[in-house]
């Protein structure tokens, strides 16, 4: 029983962080119909920046992440205005190509500027754990997941309780209807992309503490995050949360009770099975276009 609880708790802790990382990706897809393949590269870029500031100043990496939120918001806004907006009327495949190009550029720049090396931030608590009963809760993971959940909650409140958030959701549900009541599609898209990018500030700083990374790490991350949002339903925020928690728990349960070798495969098998019965994913909505 304790073994089961331990695996469950570890899985939820891992999944909570994945959820935050996937939230920006699913938001941008839902509102703008853009599959942002550069999301993983942005996370790794933030991780690198966090590491660099941490290494130079000793400030806690998670705190650095919070400070970086407005910075990454700005980066996202500029990226949208400068590049992404140019393909706003193109098909979704264009967005994949464009953002894949951005991902390669970010990787290349990181290679040149930061060097092709593994890094990881090691604040004092990185190898310590909280013990609750017989359960082991790694501190870094607990802090990371707490920060992730607070960020997700903030995102949820913004989307549901502010005019900006309502405009974003309206644009996502019915762009022409939203335009009729005076919501600017371009402005909303810029805002969405900026918010999506801002989530990587916190996600990337958590990554720098929990996982060693180097410039090419983004391939692993983007494939994992795409898996999560496909399972949850592309464009659904609760879907991303549930998908991420499922991935985390599937990993730890398989590692504990099955074989470590299958730990990462089980999740993708779960995606296949879910898509067989619900092609739109767990929380995705079926549209008239999909049925036709």
């Amino acid at each position, binding site marked *: 029983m304790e073994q089961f609880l331990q*695996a469950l708790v570890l899985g939820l802790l891992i999944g909570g962080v994945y959820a935050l990382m996937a939230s920006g990706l699913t938001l941008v897809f839902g509102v703008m119909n853009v*599959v942002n393949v550069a999301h993983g590269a942005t996370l790794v870029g933030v991780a690198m920046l966090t590491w660099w500031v941490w290494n130079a100043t000793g400030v806690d990496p998670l705190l650095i992440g919070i400070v970086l939120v407005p910075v990454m918001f700005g980066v996202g806004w500029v990226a949208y205005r400068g590049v992404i907006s140019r393909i706003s009327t193109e098909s979704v495949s264009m967005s994949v190509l464009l953002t894949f190009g951005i991902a390669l550029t970010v990787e290349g720049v990181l290679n040149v500027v930061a060097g*092709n090396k*593994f890094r990881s931030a090691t604040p004092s608590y990185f190898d310590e754990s909280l013990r609750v009963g017989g359960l*082991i809760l790694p501190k870094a993971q607990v802090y990371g997941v707490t920060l992730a959940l607070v960020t997700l909650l903030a995102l949820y409140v913004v989307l549901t309780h502010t005019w900006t958030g309502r405009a974003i959701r309206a644009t996502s549900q019915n762009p022409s209807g939203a335009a009729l009541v005076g919501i600017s599609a371009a402005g909303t898209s810029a805002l969405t992309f900026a918010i999506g990018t801002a989530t990587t500030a916190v996600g990337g700083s958590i990554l720098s503490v929990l996982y060693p990374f180097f410039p090419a790490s983004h391939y692993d991350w983007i494939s994992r995050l795409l898996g999560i949002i496909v399972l949850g339903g592309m464009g659904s*925020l609760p879907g991303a949360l549930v998908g991420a928690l499922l991935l985390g728990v599937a990993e730890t349960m398989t590692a504990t009770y099955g*074989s*470590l070798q299958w730990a990462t495969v089980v999740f993708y098998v779960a995606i296949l099975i879910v898509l067989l019965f619900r092609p739109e994913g767990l929380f995705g909505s079926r*549209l008239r*276009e999909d049925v036709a």
Partner: protein
Amino acid sequence: MTFGHNPARRSTVAALSVVALVGVAACGTPESEKESSDAGPITIGISLPLTGDFSQPGTQAKRGYEVWADMVNEQGGILGRDVKLKITDDASNQDTVVADYTRLITQDKVDLVLGTFSSLLNFPASAVAEKNQMVFVEPAGGAPEMFTRGFKYLFFAQQATAQHQADIFVKYIEGLPESARPKTAAYPTQDDPFTRPVIESMQKQLEGMGVKTVYSEVYPADTTNFQSTAVTIAGKKPDLIAQGAVFEDGIGLVRSLQQVGYTPKMLFQTSAPSNAGQYSSGIGEANTDGVFYTVSWNENAETPNNAEFVKAYADAYENETPAEDAADAFAAAEVLQKGVEEVGSIDQTKIADYLHENEVETILGPLTWDETGAPQSEFLLAQWQDGKVEIVGPEEAATTDETIDVKPEWK
């Protein structure tokens, strides 16, 4: 809340698969006897993973080759001709590496080729070279499968293939008094052609000595979370943990063991601890104490040209110490150079015959090969001591005669 007004969801999937479809397959045509012009430089074709998954070791290998070429050219080249490297990027992709070597050999008509990095890439690349009857000296790629194909032109420029990489560690354990030997052991390993055979062969040898296996698991390369593994292993209390770790996974497991609070009496990891600074900063320098690994090269080894190599590398790259991968590449180039110089011409078959029959001195030490190109020496056993790496075996290469036989608790 659900977002989405997407009329073309299916095309998303299609677009994603486009991303995966980067790569060109190509097939080689046999090279007819090359008429080597005696004028002009000798060109050596190399394809390396300069981007993608293996970009890190690939970049190091490139530096090793370049330092070698500069040193050779300063000394008047090979056979009186300058050496020119033609290096292309295969993006860590098997199809691209095949296309690259095919082009280098059949279109660019390079005089010689040198190997790429990792068994994964050297496996198909060496087949292209073999088909074109070009000598293929590889700086990495010790997976057992490399040497079961009966290739005549393949040579692995390290001391031993993967199955024999940990022999020296087993020997060390054998040399300990009965009471100091581990009684139980855990063997987690990444499913990597260069780590898995090391650990599997070690497990077999140690079981033969009566060390009981309490845990043995293979995990895929994309495994990032090791907490539940650490909990499971800690529950079995093994004296020895021997991990087939590439890099991140080595850091990941050690960190998780620290979080769980379990210190094994002995810790062995394959490649991860050889990444000096990156390893010690990843797990905390104090925690490196006592970690064992095997390695092909040491910066302080008194092998011919080693000091010159370390110095030339430091001069070229901001006083950095070469990584093992750079040294291996340098050694591979030394092997090829020796072959060409001894034969006195660029005759691929004669060079291959020479290397099959003779010992070659390199910065890694002397190397010899059997008829499949598998090397016949042994690796160095290294251990982290006081934040530094020491070579503890074999005796003639050791930098200290002290070993830490019981690993101190995590700090």
